[in-house]
């Protein structure tokens, strides 16, 4: 903790030794690149229909085949990656913002503030949020940004707990006391002194939140309550695949495989990051 640059470079070298984590990171980088470049590299527009063709198995014209409306599956998976990854990052950012602020404030001020804030977290933990998201989607319509926000707004609870626990261990250390003695403002204290010291656990937990958020989005889309056609996320593609899997199994298998590989990569990378930043927890 005394020398932060060596902490990070130590962690990086540990991370690079972890094959699963490196593999996960490489796959993720490839996926993100493909998603960003989707409009340039996708062989067909995502809503382009070839009704005469209909559902066709993988061929040279359509590498992963087409769906019942003759839409190219590869293109739809590439465009779906944009939505699925976007929801992963945006909702996680929302969760990070709320969770980190909540945890720092509760942990740093302590006392009554802390006990009230953490009691709220305890209570919220026990509620069926998935049901509230569905409720929100029904009441306010299936809006993409509302979906992102709502998912982010329910995933911050664990982050708040982790950050609070970290701040509690930091706030009695000399450098914090010294900063207090110098009259540093609360905001500067959070930003300059506390936050840089808890970046590790935050990074780890954020990486592990992304797959959860993506699962939630695809779960909603699978039920038909998330992303609406003609837009597609991996969840809606899997839903379409399930509907026609008896005759056209490729429509289920390829989107399912892409989604699973992504979740695997995110989890392996997150686990690797955790082990690298906190060697104590790895066994």
């Amino acid at each position, binding site marked *: 903790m005394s020398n932060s640059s060596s902490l990070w470079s130590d962690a990086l070298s540990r991370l690079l030794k972890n094959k699963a984590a490196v593999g996960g990171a490489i796959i993720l980088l490839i996926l993100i690149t493909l998603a960003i470049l989707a409009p340039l590299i996708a062989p067909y527009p995502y809503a382009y229909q070839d009704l005469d063709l209909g559902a066709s198995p993988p061929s040279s014209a359509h590498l992963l085949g087409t769906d019942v409306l003759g839409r190219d599956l590869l293109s739809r998976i590439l465009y779906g990656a944009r939505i699925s990854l976007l929801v992963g990052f945006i909702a996680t950012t929302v969760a990070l913002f709320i969770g980190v602020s909540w945890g720092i404030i509760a942990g740093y001020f302590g006392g009554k503030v802390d006990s009230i804030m953490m009691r709220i977290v305890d209570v919220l933990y026990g509620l*069926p949020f998935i049901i509230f998201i569905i409720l929100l989607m029904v009441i306010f319509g299936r809006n993409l940004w509302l979906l992102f926000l709502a998912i982010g707004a329910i995933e911050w609870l664990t982050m708040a707990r982790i950050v609070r626990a970290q701040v509690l261990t930091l706030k009695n250390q000399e450098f914090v006391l010294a900063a207090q003695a110098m009259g540093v403002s609360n905001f500067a204290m959070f930003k300059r002194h506390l936050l840089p010291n808890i970046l590790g656990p935050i990074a780890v937990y954020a990486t592990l939140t992304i797959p959860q958020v993506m699962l939630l989005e695809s779960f909603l889309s*699978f039920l038909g309550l998330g992303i609406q056609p003609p837009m597609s996320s991996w969840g809606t593609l899997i839903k379409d695949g399930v509907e026609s899997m008896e005759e056209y199994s490729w429509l*289920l298998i390829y989107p399912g495989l892409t989604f699973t590989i992504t*979740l695997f990569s995110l989890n392996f990378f997150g686990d690797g990051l955790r082990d690298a930043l906190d060697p104590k927890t790895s066994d």
Partner: protein
Amino acid sequence: MLSIFLKRILLAVPVLIAVASITFFLVRLAPGGPFDAEKAVSEQVMKNLNEVYNLNAPLSEQYFDYMSGILVGDFGPSFRFPGRSVTELIMTGLPVTFELAIYSMLIALFIGTLSGVTAALKRNTFLDYIPMSIAMIGICVPTFLLGPLLVLIFGINLELLPVSGWDQLPGDKILPSLTLGFAYAAYIARLSRGGMLEILNQDFIRTARAKGLTETMVVTKHAMQGGLIPVVSFLGPAVAGLLAGSFVVETIFQIPGLGRFYVEAAFNRDYTMILGTTIFFSFMIVVFNLFSDILALWLNPRSRDI
């Protein structure tokens, strides 16, 4: 210890009231009335409809009527199924969902603790690696993908098991229960492995071994009681997950349970049904959380004399 229980129970009451109130007003915020989709009706009919659903009274009165109805288990009439009450619909679906949840949880507990405890005891051997790799798959493959894949393999290709339904064909309960239970088996395996590893390093285990107890005795009598506390604490939150899972599994396998009713109500904008089931789900989850917390406290000797 008793005071902790009482405190937890007392805390649950305002939480439930808050949930019911927030849901009630959220649903009232919804744009449009419940009958907008139907063809135009005369003013008199509209008035009578509103009368039936108690929509003419001032909002505060509607609220108090609704809240006092809940106390006696009356969630009002369904908007979409005329003549049927929400309570009636919940009671039709609940036993099915309950049965599905019980089977899934039994599968999850059996497979999960067995492989987790084995993995901890045989650490860093293939008996550790193989179950834990499968557990990783269980966590990464979502229910809505696993279910259809199982149907594709066992139902359609091998023609071993029915692909849908509940209580109609022999064996039609197997695939839904497996689908819902698998992810929990994976979580429980990881939790029980972690819990056991922590316990097995402690002094009292060494003492138990030193005084010559058999390994079976050490594991079942001493280690498992403490090592499985994380699993017990997980059971409460798992109920919330089981509910969400039942939405998917009941949709995939066309099971007439509460989860499918809820998803259908969400599609049909059956506001009273959504309102009623949301409150009902919240109530169940709060109660189960309370129950699993109490059980975990009771199992943990350190917290007993507080």
